[in-house]
């Protein structure tokens, strides 16, 4: 019913295919001289529990600290912790403490964890997810084990493996699916076991014959793993969209309500490795966009500085660029390219600075028409500018998933998304108060 609402075909906008820049290219390997491990919890930004101190020698994969929720932080390279430095953290958006590790490039590894095979119990798998620090690779970095805690009681019947990667430019998931098919299947099997699911779907976009070719025999390998396609549009990789497209189910807050868990393909691959005892120290990221000399997929240690990677690839193109961790649609641009690659980042998009000819809002409603959650960004913008908090509350900006489509589509080149974000921030406090009142009222 796209007549009365916006959840029709129209919001799924075909964003020009920018993936060719890095797709199919050889994965380059890069070993920086130094990596910088942030010693704060990426969620709460509180300092982590440190096991090491400055001057210590660390090995690749050594636990150097533990976060609040018990997830460990690993050293990605072997070498000496030379100093502490305050640097910009792209996830938290501000400066925090980092440990600089001088890379001796000897790849001295710690003892791997015990190998677990499919006979492992669900609890063991979840425990391994936790101790290997596995986090969602879709870009949000949500610890994976939390999704599986108590999953057995939630009646999960299907696991959806998200290989949609709908952001422009990014190709790491696509490449990983081609290169690591066995590990992917293995990881999915563990996930199904951990959740007690009967089926799993690998979901990717239509129009990729190489993937079709690669996965056409999937059901003969494991009859309960299937392939499903979604449209080649943005934001088809949004969890809610995938659940709806593949399972025809909707939910309110979490996919578990629809008896499903959605995980990224790379998460599944990493899980397979974690079960094999390896922890994530290196990762392949897409460095792409017209602002970098040689767009490629690069295999780097995590916690490598963005600026080092760009230099390795021949430096920036042009005078002024925007650098964002992740795709260009929903990730925030950083002010400082010395920020490091966090374990859950899958790309670095570098684009020349946009010169936008911003005009007054036309009130065309294109933003409302394209918002995948059905918000009315233009109305939210107006309410925000008029400082009308009642109207803002009525427009429920907290539903925004930050997909960036509203700004993308705006013909007047207004940063509508930014206004929605601000309104979201302003209303979230009030919303919490209201919810608290409601709870009290119930009591």
């Amino acid at each position, binding site marked *: *019913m*796209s*007549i*009365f*609402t*916006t*959840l029709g075909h129209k919001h799924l*906008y075909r964003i020009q295919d920018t993936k060719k820049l890095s797709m199919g290219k050889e994965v380059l390997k890069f070993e920086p001289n130094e990596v910088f491990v942030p010693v704060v919890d990426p969620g709460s930004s509180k300092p982590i529990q440190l096991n090491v101190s400055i001057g210590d020698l660390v090995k690749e994969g050594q636990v150097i600290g533990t976060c609040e929720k018990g997830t460990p932080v690993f050293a990605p390279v072997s070498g000496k912790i030379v100093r502490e430095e305050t640097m910009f953290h792209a996830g938290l958006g501000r400066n925090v403490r980092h440990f600089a590790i001088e890379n001796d490039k000897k790849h001295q590894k710690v003892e791997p964890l015990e190998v677990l095979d499919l006979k492992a119990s669900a609890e063991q798998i979840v425990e391994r997810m936790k101790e290997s620090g596995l986090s969602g690779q879709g870009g949000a970095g949500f610890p994976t084990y939390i999704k599986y805690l108590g999953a057995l009681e939630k009646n999960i019947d299907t696991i959806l493996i998200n290989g949609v990667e709908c952001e*422009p430019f990014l190709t790491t998931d696509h490449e990983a699916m081609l290169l690591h098919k066995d590990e992917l299947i293995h990881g999915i099997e563990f996930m199904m076991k951990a959740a007690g699911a009967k089926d799993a779907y690998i979901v990717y976009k239509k129009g990729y014959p190489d993937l079709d070719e690669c996965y056409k025999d999937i059901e003969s390998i494991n009859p309960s793993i299937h392939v499903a396609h979604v449209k080649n549009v943005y934001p088809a990789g949004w969890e809610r969209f995938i659940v709806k497209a593949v399972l025809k189910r909707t939910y309110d807050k979490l996919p578990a309500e629809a008896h499903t868990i959605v995980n990224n393909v790379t998460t599944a691959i990493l899980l397979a490795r974690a079960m094999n005892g390896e922890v994530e120290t290196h990762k392949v990221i897409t460095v792409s*966009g017209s602002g970098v000399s040689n767009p490629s997929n690069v295999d780097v240690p995590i916690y490598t500085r963005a600026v080092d990677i760009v230099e390795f690839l021949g430096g*920036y193109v042009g*005078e*002024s*660029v*925007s650098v*964002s961790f992740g795709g*260009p*649609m*929903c*990730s*925030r*641009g*950083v*002010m*400082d390219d010395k920020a490091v690659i966090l374990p859950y980042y899958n790309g670095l998009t570098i*684009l020349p*600075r*946009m010169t*936008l*000819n911003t*005009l*007054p*809002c*036309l*009130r*065309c*409603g*294109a933003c*409302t028409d394209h918002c995948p*959650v*059905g*918000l*009315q960004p*233009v*109305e939210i913008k107006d309410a925000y500018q008029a400082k009308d908090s009642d*109207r803002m509350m*009525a*427009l*429920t900006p907290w*539903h925004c998933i930050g997909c*960036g489509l509203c*700004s*993308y*589509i*705006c*013909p*007047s080149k207004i*940063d509508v*998304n*930014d206004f929605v974000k601000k309104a979201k921030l302003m209303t979230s406090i009030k919303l919490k108060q209201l919810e608290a009142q409601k709870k009290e009222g119930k009591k």
Partner: protein
Amino acid sequence: MNLAVNPAPYVRSKNSTLKIMLMLLGGLALVWLAAIIYYFIAGNVEDGLFAILNVVICVLTAMVTEILFFLPKTLKEYKENKEKVGNICLYLLKKEINSFGYITGIILALLLPVGMAWWQLVFTTIAAVAICKMLFGGFGYNIFNPAIFGRIFAQICFGSSFNYGHIEGIQEFEVFTGPTVLSNWAGEGWNTLTSFSNVSLFDLFIGNYRGTLGETFSLLIIVIGIAFVVLHVIDWRISCSYLLTCLLSAMLVGAVNGVSDFGTFILAQMLTGGILFGAVFCLTDPVTSPTSPLGKIIYGVFAGFITMLIRFMGSGAEGVAYSILFANMITPLIDMCFKGRTTDKLALKASITGGICTLLILVSCAYMGKVSSATPTYNSVVTEKSASVYNVKVTPFANQTEKDAPYVQIDMDVEVNASAKTVVSVTVNDTGAGGGYGDYFLGVVEEMSEYLGYRQDKGSHLKELSETYVKFEDPIPFATFRALDLQYYSSTNYTEFSKVPDTIKCGATYTVSGYMYGINRVLDYVEGK
């Protein structure tokens, strides 16, 4: 390296407001081109030149007006930062290009008829742009569609003087909206198409008749409209809901009144009065329409409803302009009504919309019942005053109630030269009561005098003419008609006249038809003697 920190996303769609507006301009230019061609072919060279000049005048005035509004601020900026502004003329021009005054100008010009004086055009455009757009804060902040505002402004200010305002040599009684096919039709009663028997349905479709400059080219407008929808220049919801509402109303009127030729009735209703032009170019103006999808539909339905209400209950042809103004007025209201997400409570919303539509349709059913269904007839009594002078008293709409049409009786003396078979003079003793009589009649008289062979110099003063050949006893408040009305008199031999059937073919409105009818009946009488 200079790192830019503008907010995400870092890719933006290639579409832009400027692009949308330029496409709109392209569509309007096509309509303009059609108008130029039509007026050169169907009219004379002057008509054609006016078709060109009208648009040029309006566009230039609109642009200059906006630039004048930009000037103070620009000068201040220039003083503060010379570098940033650079060439001040270029800077102003750039501002103007992004303010789209020229779009307002061209739409306005296409909404006005050929034959307005240049100063009237200038004045109208300034009023539209200055009052309706710039005083509200410029592009994006106006509440009313400036072009529509301009059209209504012109109609109120100059509606009665269009005939005389034209530059010497243009003999065109095509007046604004009044004499368009629609009002002829409205005047004659909706039951028949005979009132514009000179204009066929096909003419209506391709635009082979006179109206305002741009609104007559139905086929072209439909094609452009479809192209616009495909190119995302306009929102299909607005146009479609508007046109559907109009169509439904027309069908209901047809059904309730049992019109003889249903298909023709419906088509002619949709093709006249600028409904299509409004649906494609005016109503869809994004600045003055709601933003939410459902809001757009409600907006379209509302405008369609008002259009038809005015058409069937009111004066007829101005319906589109007024309805758009009304719809603009409720736009903020519609926007305020849509809270939360557009996906919320879908069923509820759909049923509300459905409810509103049904309600509107029911209401329209009720008002349609009032539309007179009978073909109006005219009664007349001819008495011989002297050998060559005959008195005739005409009662138009003799078969209708007071409510349907104001009671009117025309009393005039017609002097006939029976041997030469020409009308010598007409003296109007009484124009009767009620509306529909107007200054335009003076124009008819002028034209008529010419045909009657009494007019020597074109520039002679009308007042004199009217005093000499036609005498009015009543003040004449308002009337409309067109040159077509007089074509039967262009023949020197009036035996032709008597072929005019009882349902007046040549009348523009019942007023003028009344006069024509009276003269015709005198001629019948003389013939029959």
